[in-house]
């Protein structure tokens, strides 16, 4: 109770709370703005996760019977637990998206999915039957969620600076496991609840900001890679088109040569000009050759079906 007194009854407490929640909400709004440009679902997941975990951590009192001072409210209390489940799910999806291909180990991937399913399931059960037992159980399984995040963070081999940021922000995030540890009674209650709350707010704020920048940078890199791929695809289409034209043009050139050597006429002259123009078009497409990455195609001789 004294924590909540501090947070909501004193001026500094209210200031910290407000600042802390605004960090979550404003990062979420920023993520939505960036989403309109980059169109990457990672940003949407972040936009859901960020404004949720900030107030949720604030509400997670170390006393297992108290989840914010709601006096055991019949609507808000279950709702908060459901939101925790949603936040955990979004966070899981986000980590999977970011670490995605670096995941590598299929077993670890599966274990992570199983752990998250259990955590979410227990949370949902808790939401519908709130008791000390279910709250402690929910906190207990959440420890394993943090553990998985720590494993993912530690085994993630970053290739870029942004990925390095993501890695360390995930490791920082696991410091927040102090909450479920205290809630389950594995760790003794901190001498001062205020200390825990301030620590959590600080860690979570730092985490959110770094995590946000890492996500923006990673999506930006993906975005520019996608653009390059798009350009390569276009270049490839032009080259395919040119390659399809070359043999027919050659046939025209040869046929015209024969016609002209028999009897050059006004008509063959005009045809010669047309063939020359076609040849020039084909040559002009040559400049796309260097933009095509042939490594990704086994057989470039197979023209796309729609061109054939």
């Amino acid at each position: 109770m004294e924590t909540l007194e501090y947070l909501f009854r004193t001026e500094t407490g209210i200031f910290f709370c407000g600042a802390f929640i605004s960090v979550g909400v404003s990062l979420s709004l920023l993520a939505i703005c960036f989403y309109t440009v980059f169109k990457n679902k990672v940003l949407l997941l972040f936009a859901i996760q960020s404004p949720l975990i900030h107030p949720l951590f604030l509400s997670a009192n170390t006393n297992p019977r108290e989840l914010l001072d709601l006096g055991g409210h019949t609507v808000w209390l279950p709702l908060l637990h459901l939101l925790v489940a949603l936040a955990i799910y979004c966070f899981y999806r986000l980590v999977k998206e970011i670490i995605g291909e670096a995941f590598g180990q299929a077993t670890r991937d599966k274990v992570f999915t199983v752990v998250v399913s259990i955590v979410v399931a227990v949370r949902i059960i808790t939401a519908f039957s709130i008791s000390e037992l279910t709250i402690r159980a929910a906190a207990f399984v959440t420890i394993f969620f943090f553990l998985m995040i720590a494993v993912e963070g530690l085994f993630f081999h970053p290739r870029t600076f942004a990925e390095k940021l993501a890695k360390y922000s995930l490791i920082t995030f696991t410091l927040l496991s102090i909450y479920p540890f205290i809630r389950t009674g594995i760790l003794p209650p901190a001498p001062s609840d205020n200390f825990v709350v301030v620590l959590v707010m600080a860690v979570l704020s730092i985490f959110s900001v770094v995590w946000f920048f890492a996500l923006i940078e990673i999506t930006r890199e993906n975005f520019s890679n996608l653009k390059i791929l798009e350009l390569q695809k276009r270049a490839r289409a032009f080259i395919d088109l040119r390659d399809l034209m070359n043999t027919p043009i050659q046939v025209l050139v040869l046929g015209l040569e024969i016609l002209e050597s028999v009897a050059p006429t006004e008509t063959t002259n005009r045809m010669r000009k047309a063939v020359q123009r076609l040849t020039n078009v084909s040559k002009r497409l040559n400049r796309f050759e260097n933009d095509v990455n042939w490594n990704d195609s086994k057989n470039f001789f197979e023209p796309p079906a729609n061109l054939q």
Partner: protein
Amino acid sequence: MLEKFAPPKNPDPKVFFVDDSEDLRMLFIHLMKFRFKENCKGCATLGQMLDNKDEVLRAQIVVLDINLGVGEPSGIDCYDWLKNNKFTGKILFLTGHAKNHPTVKKAWQSGAQVFEKPVDSKQFTELLASKLREPLHGNA
């Protein structure tokens, strides 16, 4: 005994065109006949080339298209076959595909001359004719 001195009824083709476009082959053959009175022949694939292997190996020039159709062995395979069978004439590649494609690169690296479609037919047939007049000594 006398047969020995009689001119052969079907002289060997001097130039052999391997290209999957029949129109292109026929027009090249026609043009060579028409302009230089040279007897040439052609076929579409490596398989057909092997059916005429005696004629091919006796030819002075083999012109290979690199892409001989989807799923077919390429002109590079024809080149390798010719080399492995001690073909002594000249080999030219004629391609309509990008220079930096791995298969086309192989052709450039083989040391044989590579021509990109569409070639100037007058210049190209003149080149073939002049190569036919050159003495035979391996590949150009």
